[in-house]
């Protein structure tokens, strides 16, 4: 009560030190760290969110009400609200939430990609360590890797007869080339010093493979895996469109036939987010596995 009167009547310099002192005291360490982390996250997350907002506003403004055209964000929200809000519903058949479609597609990618990782790394090691294998196989790989994923589909359907294995094969064949090529580069680039260490110690081929070749090539292998997983996700969506059944790819195709463009937009957001998560996951795995290996 008396405080305002006091500060008004007293000389200005008197209360000042009392106000400044608490500010000078450093905030507790954890608070400072939390603030630093928060501002770091904000710097990462805010710009894309703002950009997204601007894009949505522009989209909304530009897309008017033309029937049959691209629906505006507000229209999508109205038409596909259930799809957005409940990814987990399951009414049997292919009438499921997007989570289930994405999960099915992810399972296919997991199987196909695992095969291409194992076979790709093995082939890459062979091509990278044997001059003869390099000469005979590399030109063939360079040609095959330019074949677009969907061009493999009729061939694999003809060879395998069934839809599911064909989809897996398309993923396998799409993802394998970057894995083979990057692994081979990594093996060929092992510094001569490391090779010499192995020779002086008389490491047996399996010992050399485990203690020197694999760790030295790991950063390259993960570059290949990262490109490969991205390509396999592209391939699965495309190949499911042709194959039917449960899966994000077929969901998109199905909604297109039913002229539900809003649902397609929602599915595309899912495709993008899942692909992004896959990429980050492989990158993270690579960082964990090759800790310190790249710095020498």
């Amino acid at each position, binding site marked *: 009560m008396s405080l305002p009167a006091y500060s008004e009547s007293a000389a200005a310099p008197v209360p000042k030190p009392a106000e400044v002192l608490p500010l000078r005291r450093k905030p507790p360490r954890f608070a400072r760290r939390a603030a630093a982390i928060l501002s770091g996250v904000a710097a990462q997350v805010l710009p894309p969110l703002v950009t997204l907002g601007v894009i949505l506003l522009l989209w909304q403004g530009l897309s008017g009400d033309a029937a049959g055209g691209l629906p505006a964000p507000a229209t999508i929200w109205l038409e596909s609200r259930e799809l957005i809000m409940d990814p987990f519903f399951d009414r049997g058949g292919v009438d499921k939430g997007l989570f289930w479609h994405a999960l099915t597609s992810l399972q296919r990618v997991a199987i196909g990609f695992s095969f291409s990782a194992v076979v790709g790394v093995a082939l890459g090691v062979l091509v990278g360590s044997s001059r003869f294998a390099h000469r005979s196989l590399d030109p063939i790989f360079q040609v095959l890797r330019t074949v677009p994923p969907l061009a493999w589909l009729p061939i694999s359907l003809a060879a395998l007869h069934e839809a599911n294995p064909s989809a897996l094969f398309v993923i396998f064949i799409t993802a394998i080339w970057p894995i083979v090529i990057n692994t081979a580069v990594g093996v060929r680039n092992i510094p001569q010093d490391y090779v010499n260490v192995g020779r002086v110690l*008389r490491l047996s081929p399996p010992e050399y493979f485990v203690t020197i070749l694999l760790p030295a090539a790991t950063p390259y292998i993960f570059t290949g895996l990262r490109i490969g997983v991205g390509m396999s996700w592209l391939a699965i969506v495309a190949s499911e469109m042709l194959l039917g059944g449960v899966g994000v790819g077929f969901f998109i195709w199905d909604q297109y036939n039913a002229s539900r463009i809003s649902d397609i937009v929602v599915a595309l957001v899912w495709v993008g987010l899942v692909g992004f998560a896959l990429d980050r996951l492989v990158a993270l795995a690579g960082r964990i596995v090759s*800790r310190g*290996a790249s*710095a020498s």
Partner: protein
Amino acid sequence: MSSRAYLSIENLGVTFNAGQRASEVLKGVDLTVDQGEFISIIGHSGCGKSTLLNVVAGLVPVSHGAVILDKRAVDGPGPDRAVVFQNHSLLPWLTVYENVRLAVDKVFRGRKSRPERHAWTLHNLALVQMTHAKDKKPHEISGGMKQRVGLARALAMEPKVLLLDEPFGALDALTRANLQDSVMEIHAKLRNTVLMITHDVDEAVLLSDRIVMMTNGPAAEIGDIVRVELPRPRRRIEVDATPAYIAARHAVIEFLYARHTGLHAAA
């Protein structure tokens, strides 16, 4: 020291074949080294010093002549000829301890038990004063420390010959002096047979029993050998003004800059 040569390089010739063109790097190199002797090899850049060392290591095949170590001809690399490379060549994905342990496990498997191999690894890290950093990765330690670990890894193999290819070339003068002292101490303690390449005349004189001076390539050979008549143990501040030191130093400099200038090698 001993009457019979421990390591002998006999009429050694090395020729590299690059496509159709063959380049003769070494020709008619003869050298005998006693057990426990410390030999430095000095010569202008590109004359073939590393090639000579790598032949003894077994990393480069002999084209002509032979290298005989402890009565057996060298034909391929092996842990009885441990190499410390100029750029340390520690495996970056292993810790300091693991780098040394890898060599210990490989060399002493079957001869030492697991706890003995652990103790031997730690013993060699202690020898180069690197125990404190045993759990660090190579990129977390300084250049001088990496060379110490490289040295520990080589010593841990209990090699017949220790091969050092410009081990301190990339280090600053103080770190280099420090490591030279360590190498002298270790050599006094273990009496290893050492072949060391260096560009540093003082380093050669301070550390060596004999300094091998190579002529310029191509087809380089041993031009002359200087014996350093300094008693051991040597301490740098005590020896560097003695007549023997000055004489050896002068002989090397005279060879390098008056008789075999690096001019046509550098051109």
